[in-house]
């Protein structure tokens, strides 16, 4: 904020209480005694009353203009990014009014989620950008709910669409589910696979989800006019000369929104490239941008150039870090990440199910053992195609879950955070260890498993907790993690495969979530779509159906099911949503 320091107005820190905007406006509106208030507070009371009284925005334009003309600087002392100016009162009041109307739309409209204050702000900000046909870059840290904010925008957008979401193949299912869950009124079309089809006319409020590879080649996407086009994991657009970036720029849209947790992975040219898609022209010609901004910053750490970059980027990009919104976050945030099976995994999964049911499970004690063996085999295929030859390095494209885990952990490492990865299979842990070492560009990513001596385990734990140079990821097997480990340095926990028993999963999570953990803990559960993992997850969530599955040991309960019910649970179902 700006304040009076000595005999001049300058930037300063002001103690503030941050609350939900709607609550603040209501509080202002209901203030009855105005005499003790300063001029600014009285102005804001008037503004709150005006905006909350009627729903129609055009009717209070005049009132707000009058209030703006009378508002002293203390009432609109919001600083610009470079702290050299404050926002003009009419702008601040206009933002106030729009934010309240968006907040209202979010509460009463089609979004089935309660947004945290910073997320509601994000939706308002996105609305403001697209309202004038401008693009935007939403670059919040991973885990802060970027997808939800974008869905909030799509769900409350007055114009009917159609909208397009472009994302990596591994995220297609995730997007479809999140939209279904939070905005069931939106029609979703997952445009993917050889049998994909897109009608000539799309119904109102339709969201089409497609992968980056289709963006390059598919005429049904390229030849259409979209309302909002969202590019998720927009690091994919970091190379301005690549085909995919050119295709993204060429697509017809009212607004293009890039979503990424890492707008700059390696150099500032990547930022230019993303901006060339969302907000062309903002950063100038590429060569000029390099001359004026990139080279001065890289070669001599020019403060002038850095300040200029901030002022250029700031209106178009919203980036909040976990630290900045820590107050808004609960101590723990759980998310389910839906992954897609690779074609190889789909084949393997179907074959395994067919084989098991053709051979039959028999009855008695033998039946139980054979069912458990099938479940184990299926879970391993969800993790990575089997059989896997020992020593062979994991390859990208073979497992959707593995690829997604590498992407997520790469981002976590880039943000300077640490993660624990739990798996129940020794082989998978070793695959993860070698695959992640390559993905994170590390000599090794340690794997703590039951085969290590106590001294070896202690060394790994101590390195993870205390050593600055240690790998940011520690892989653990369930059994080894059962001991009293304390791994509070991790702010992320990733369950690579599901424990059938939720209580065991909780216990593993608690390794990181102890008293002493100060930052928010993000817990991710990876689930492959349409598989037995997914079925079990749904049973857990919906809390009906097979009662035993919810409370106790799921695998044991499954072993008692008759064939037909068992087949319903384990069959691969790629159509259900």
């Amino acid at each position, binding site marked *: 904020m700006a304040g009076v320091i000595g005999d001049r*107005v300058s930037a300063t820190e002001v103690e503030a209480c941050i609350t939900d905007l709607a609550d603040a406006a209501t509080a202002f509106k209901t203030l009855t005694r105005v005499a003790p208030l300063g001029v600014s507070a009285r102005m804001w009371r008037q503004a709150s009353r005006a905006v909350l009284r009627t729903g129609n925005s055009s009717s209070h334009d005049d009132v707000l203009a009058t209030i703006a003309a009378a508002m*002293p600087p203390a009432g609109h002392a919001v600083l610009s990014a470079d702290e*050299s*100016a*404050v926002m003009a009162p009419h702008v601040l009041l206009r933002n106030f009014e729009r934010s309240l109307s968006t907040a209202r739309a979010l509460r009463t409209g089609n979004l089935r989620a309660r947004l945290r204050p910073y997320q509601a702000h994000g939706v308002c900000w996105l609305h403001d950008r697209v309202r*004038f046909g401008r693009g935007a870059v939403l670059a919040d840290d991973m885990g802060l709910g970027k997808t939800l904010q974008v869905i909030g925008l799509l769900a409350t957008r*007055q114009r009917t669409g159609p909208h397009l979401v472009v994302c990596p193949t591994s995220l297609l299912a995730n997007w479809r589910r999140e939209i279904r869950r939070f905005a069931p009124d939106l029609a979703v079309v997952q445009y993917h696979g050889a049998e994909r089809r897109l009608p000539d006319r799309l119904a109102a409020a339709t969201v089409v989800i497609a992968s980056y590879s289709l963006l390059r080649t598919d005429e049904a996407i390229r030849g259409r006019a979209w309302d909002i086009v969202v590019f998720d994991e927009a690091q994919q657009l970091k190379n301005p000369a690549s085909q995919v970036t050119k295709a993204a720029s060429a697509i017809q849209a009212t607004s293009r929104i890039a979503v990424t947790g890492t707008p700059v992975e390696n150099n500032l040219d990547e930022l230019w490239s993303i901006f060339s898609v969302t907000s062309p022209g903002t950063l100038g010609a590429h060569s000029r941008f390099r*001359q004026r901004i990139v080279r*001065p910053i890289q070669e001599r750490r020019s403060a002038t150039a850095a300040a*200029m970059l901030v002022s250029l980027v700031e209106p178009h990009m919203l980036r909040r870090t976990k630290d900045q919104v820590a107050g808004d976050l609960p101590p723990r945030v759980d998310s389910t990440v839906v992954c897609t099976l690779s074609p190889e995994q789909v084949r393997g999964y179907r074959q395994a199910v067919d084989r098991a049911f053709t051979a039959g499970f028999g009855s008695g004690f033998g039946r139980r053992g054979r069912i458990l063996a099938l479940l184990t085999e299926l879970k391993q295929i969800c993790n990575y195609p089997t059989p896997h030859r020992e020593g062979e390095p994991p390859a990208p494209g073979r497992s959707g879950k593995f690829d997604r885990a590498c992407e997520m952990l790469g981002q976590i490492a880039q943000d300077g955070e640490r993660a624990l990865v739990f798996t129940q299979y020794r082989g998978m842990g070793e695959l993860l260890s070698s695959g992640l070492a390559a993905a994170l560009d590390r000599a090794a990513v340690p794997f703590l498993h039951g085969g290590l001596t106590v001294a070896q385990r202690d060394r790994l734990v101590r390195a993870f907790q205390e050593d600055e140079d240690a790998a940011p990821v520690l892989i653990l097997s369930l059994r080894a993690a059962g001991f009293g480990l304390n791994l509070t340095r991790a702010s992320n926990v990733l369950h690579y495969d599901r424990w059938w028993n939720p209580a065991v999963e909780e216990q593993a999570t608690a390794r990181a979530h102890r008293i002493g953990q100060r930052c928010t803990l993000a817990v991710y559960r990876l689930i492959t779509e349409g598989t037995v993992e997914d079925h079990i997850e749904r049973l857990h969530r919906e809390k009906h159906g097979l009662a035993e599955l919810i409370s106790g040991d799921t695998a044991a309960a499954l072993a008692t099911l008759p064939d037909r019910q068992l087949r319903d649970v384990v069959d691969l179902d790629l159509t259900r949503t």
Partner: protein
Amino acid sequence: MPGRRFGVTAWGHAWLRTIERTTGQPDLRLPRARALSQRHVTRLALGAQSIIGTIADGSTEQVVSIRVGAWADAEQATAEALLARQSDHLGAGEVPDQLVDEFTAAGLCVAVPLDDIEAVCTCRSRTTPCTHTLATLYGVVLRIDERPLTALDLRMRQSPARRGQDCDWLALADLDPSTFFTRSVQRFNPNTAGPQEVSTPS
């Protein structure tokens, strides 16, 4: 030109030409001035018609202060007219390179010839301009390359940055501390605020 450090924009280049003349004997102090400008200019304050540079070289510190002549009234008017067509591009200190050609065609010199520059340095060198002055001018070239608008700030009486700035923000320097809590700023005009919505014409 790859590898070139100074004068990468047309605006910076115009100023570079005042230091590195293409005719006559090469000035042997220039390599030293270039080196100083990149590592030893600790402060560089640029304002309307004024440049103040501080150069710390080893144990000594020299302060150079340079006055740059403003354009004459007729030239100011010409510059204003040419700039008026460019108002879109004045964000974040940018001015397009081709405007330099338009200025030159209209008879405006972007930079000031070295002979016309009034420079005072705290050093005891008797040659004018001294190495510190040249180093400061190299620093000006770098600054202009980053922020071409600086070249106009130096020559114009009223900075185009102020004028071109949208009325969405009020500079802190323009706020009066005595009325900060009590009286509104009358300067802004709410009628010019904001772009029009594309979706719903109001």
